[in-house]
């Protein structure tokens, strides 16, 4: 009986076959996401002013920048690779990179190299919003690709793509923000955007999972 069901299923699937357009290459999508992110960074640079001269940056600032960059890129690559069966090794590398990058960024943020002042948290909310706004540029491209992919663990996929995008957004803000006090860098450039992105993945995954089961085989 179960084998008969399998045979019926094969016949049904073949009968319902519709042409599909293969997904784009991962490297093309990654490049497009980064290009759009670059445009957002340039815009932010012109609109928000500039950070102090790099000579004034403590070395932890560079570690933070590198961490956010690695976390952002790793998250985006992991989310894209995770959406395509057979690309798990790439996804794993991206995931490890993201973990490493987030850890480095957090460590740099907590190192206290910038010193804490009374206004150390000043403007953090603005930087979180800017991080998310800039991060939404790569999110647009990567998110569309991931949503079209073959994802079964929606929560993980949503978390990867959101944290990756937020990481890239935070990187841009960290590089351009003139306020370099300890609490501000930690909250506004690191914990705020990343935690918000991780939390946003919960409702996104719920909506996505529901709509995916509704349009199961539309593609």
């Amino acid at each position, binding site marked *: 009986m179960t084998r008969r069901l399998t045979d019926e299923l094969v016949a049904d699937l073949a009968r319902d076959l519709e042409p599909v357009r293969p*997904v784009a290459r991962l490297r093309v999508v990654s490049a497009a996401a980064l290009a759009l992110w670059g445009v957002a960074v340039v815009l932010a640079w012109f609109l928000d002013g500039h950070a102090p001269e790099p000579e004034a940056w403590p070395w932890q600032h560079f570690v933070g920048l590198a961490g956010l960059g690695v976390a952002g890129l790793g998250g985006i690559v992991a989310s894209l690779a995770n959406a395509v069966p057979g690309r798990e090794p790439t996804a794993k590398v991206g995931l490890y990179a993201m973990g490493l990058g987030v850890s480095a960024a957090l460590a740099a943020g907590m190192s206290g190299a910038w010193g804490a002042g009374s206004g150390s948290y000043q403007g953090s909310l603005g930087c979180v919003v800017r991080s998310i706004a800039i991060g939404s540029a790569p999110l647009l491209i990567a998110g569309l690709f991931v949503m079209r992919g073959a994802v079964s663990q929606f929560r993980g996929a949503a978390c990867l793509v959101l944290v990756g995008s937020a990481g890239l957004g935070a990187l841009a803000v960290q590089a351009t923000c003139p306020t370099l006090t300890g609490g501000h860098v930690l909250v506004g450039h690191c914990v705020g955007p990343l935690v918000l992105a991780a939390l946003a993945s919960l409702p996104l995954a719920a909506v996505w999972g529901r709509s995916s089961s509704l349009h199961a085989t*539309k593609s």
Partner: protein
Amino acid sequence: MSEEREDRWRGWMLAAQRGDAPLYAKLLTELTPYLRAFVGRRLLDSTASEDVVQNVLISLHRARHTYRPERPFSPWVHAIARNALIDFARQRTRRTKRETSLDADHVAEPAVAAVEPRAEQLPQALEDALAALPNSQREAVELIHLEGLSVAEAAERAGVTKSALKVRAHRGYRAMRASLDRDGIAEDEL
């Protein structure tokens, strides 16, 4: 997987992406025993194994646009099969956690002798199995089998594609069958 077979399946998969149904049917037909062997090596329960094979076929159909022509075919299929096995293991773990095992010593003796399920009890068993389905699957089964709609009509009523409706109905049948199996009602009694 032999190189010749890999090339053949890859060619058929590309044809399937272009909408060639006969070659797609060939691909799925040739893949099915291969998947049975792949899954069977990892699962001893043959019924569960067949369920996983069906899930792999459904996933493959849903994910057919994610196959890139320049990539090898077998890692793609294996990844889909592995994901289906992982999903199955997770579902089984969740189900096991929900169920409470009854220790034989603590089961009360029935007041009357147990009777085999009778024909008049079967519709109730079916009704219970149907009621236990998730809304989307129950709707699919009801539209097709109780209201007698065609797949196209049922899909339109449910607001989903024909394929999606079939997948839902198929999963609904499987869940109902599993439920009836657990209740000790054989399929040929229905």
